[in-house]
């Protein structure tokens, strides 16, 4: 293939991001917008598409960026034939704030403050991915207690994130009472996170070297209160939603995807598991201490919106199992590594020792230096594989910080899931993909 590449054009590309009318776009692009995973040549694409070309009028409409069911600022351009969606193209970037660029200006200690704002429904996971990448570059091992605290907190966060999904999924499909219940239980979970980290969201709790603070007194009561409360509430959801014919009708068989398509599109998390493919990084590539706890990876069988909903509901139960094991097995010890290079000295030492004061000052002004190199660490966030890639040039700031956001990749499934469905189902499909736009646009 030859390229006629003009550097000036590359600098100022004016290419349209919108979905355009059929006669303008190439057959390959059109096929892509129809949701085809297979990549063909232009001629092959034309051939494959021939029988699908609609014979009468179609209409391109915008859904979003302000549509309430698009979870923020997702803009979908849909080509409709009557009520049927023929093509779909997500247009994103409305929430882009350049967090990867910002990350290059912040020290490793400030980094979690930045990345925690990416996925605002499960902020602890991005912090964890970032911290684990930095720790791999530093070559340090965090103490056992910190590992278990991290596990406890991220599983709590997974519960709150899935509860948020329950709420919004219910709201999108008209089950407004579900929204109220989901929000209520999520608030209880966030209250526990607040007790520990001081903040409901954007915690900046997991930091390179451990966590910011030890668990407060009475944390066990907080966990137990949640563990006692949630099973009953989840049973209520079960009765309210699974027992409801309208709910099942709206979700079953809607937005079906197969395993092969998921793997080709790089889709992970509940969407991949809904196709019956058992893949969970917690079990398959264990990090933290997930190889020491017992839990099941929940899979679906049809790959439809109902499976994705049911998997998330079941994952709340699995997370509660892990939380209970964290509660029983929480080891004693340090909540952060005692490495002078990375950890500031304890508060009491600062009063006694000039060196400790200087050390404290240096760590918070200059930050700590991280050896040259590059690392990619991935964890299982509620939405799929959340990876962090950091290139270090040996200074106190990352040279390049890239976050592989699961929502960003999972959004690519939308054209596929939408094709041939109804506009009303589009809402159910967006909801079942559960994108967090802060993470999509970063």
């Amino acid at each position, binding site marked *: 293939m030859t390229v006629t590449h003009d550097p000036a054009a590359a600098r100022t590309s004016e290419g349209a*991001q919108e979905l355009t009318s059929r006669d303008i776009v190439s057959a390959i692009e059109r096929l892509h917008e129809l949701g085809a995973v297979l990549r063909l040549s232009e001629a092959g694409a034309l051939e494959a598409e021939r029988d699908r070309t609609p014979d009468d009028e179609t209409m391109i409409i915008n859904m979003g960026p302000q549509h309430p069911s698009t979870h923020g600022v997702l803009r979908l351009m849909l080509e409709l034939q009557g009520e049927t969606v023929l093509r779909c193209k997500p247009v994103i*970037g409305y929430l882009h704030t350049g967090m990867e660029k910002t990350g290059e200006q912040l020290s490793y200690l400030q980094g979690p403050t930045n990345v925690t704002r990416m996925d605002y429904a499960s902020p602890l996971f991005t912090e964890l991915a970032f911290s684990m990448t930095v720790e791999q570059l530093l070559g340090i091992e965090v103490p056992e207690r910190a590992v278990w605290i991290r596990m406890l907190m991220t599983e709590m966060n997974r519960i709150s994130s899935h509860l948020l999904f329950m709420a919004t999924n219910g709201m999108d499909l008209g089950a407004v009472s579900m929204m109220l219940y989901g929000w209520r239980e999520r608030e209880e979970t966030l209250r526990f996170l607040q007790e520990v980290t001081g903040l409901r969201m954007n915690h900046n709790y997991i930091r390179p070297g451990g966590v910011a603070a030890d668990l407060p007194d009475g944390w066990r009561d907080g966990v137990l209160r949640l563990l006692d409360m949630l099973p009953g509430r989840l049973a209520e959801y079960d009765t309210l939603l699974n027992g409801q014919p309208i709910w099942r009708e709206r979700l079953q068989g809607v937005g079906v995807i197969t395993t092969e398509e998921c793997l080709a599109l790089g889709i992970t998390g509940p969407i991949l598991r809904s196709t019956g493919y058992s893949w969970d990084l917690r079990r398959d590539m264990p990090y933290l201490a997930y190889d020491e706890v017992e839990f099941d990876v929940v899979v679906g069988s049809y790959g439809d919106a109902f499976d994705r909903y049911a998997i998330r509901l079941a994952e709340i139960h699995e997370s509660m199992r892990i939380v209970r094991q964290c509660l029983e097995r929480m080891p004693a010890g340090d909540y952060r590594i005692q490495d002078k290079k990375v950890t500031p000295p304890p508060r009491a030492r600062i009063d006694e020792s000039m060196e400790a004061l200087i050390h404290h000052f240096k760590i918070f002004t200059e930050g700590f230096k991280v050896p040259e190199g590059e690392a990619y660490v991935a964890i299982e966030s509620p939405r799929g594989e959340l990876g962090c890639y950091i290139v270090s040039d040996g200074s106190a700031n990352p040279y390049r910080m890239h976050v592989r956001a699961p929502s960003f990749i999972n959004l690519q499934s939308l054209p596929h899931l939408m094709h041939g469905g109804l506009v009303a189902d589009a809402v159910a499909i967006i909801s079942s993909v559960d994108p967090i736009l802060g993470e999509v646009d970063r």
Partner: protein
Amino acid sequence: MSEETAVDGADAPAEEAVVVTETMFGVPVLHSGGQVVLHPTREGYPGLLRDLHEDGFHSAVDLCGVDFLTHPGRDLPAGVTAERFEVVVNLINHRNRSRVRVRLQVPEGDPVVPSATSLYPGLDAPERETFDMFGIAFDGHPDLTRILMPEDWIGHPLRKDYDIGRIPVQFKEAPAVRR
């Protein structure tokens, strides 16, 4: 790119280097944090991805760019010339639960990389993002447009020579005061 040796066959060591470079799929290899990092040439990149795909790496997890403008020196296997840009691709093999990373050197003067979307359709959005952020063009991509920045934006924000904090918020109809 011309002085780079196209290492064909697993037994061919890199030329003029005393250290025999480890190769895999005929491509120099480094290990980083327990993961295999492959360093193909631009010509060998599509072939390498095909080999990896056949070997079971059915899923491309991530693709991103790196601009090494202010940090030219870095660890690379012998025989690989450091260029300004790098395209980093992370692949995963679900069967034996392994990952590989492909680091592809992209020269500043000709930032074009063959697109991998025909093999890994999931790289569609990441390639658009890399194009948007670094100005690295992907040859053969079906829809290479900006994805995060507005389509009339000038410049590529994640390049190291792109200043931060200088540009006021722009609305489409407002007159440009960019520098």
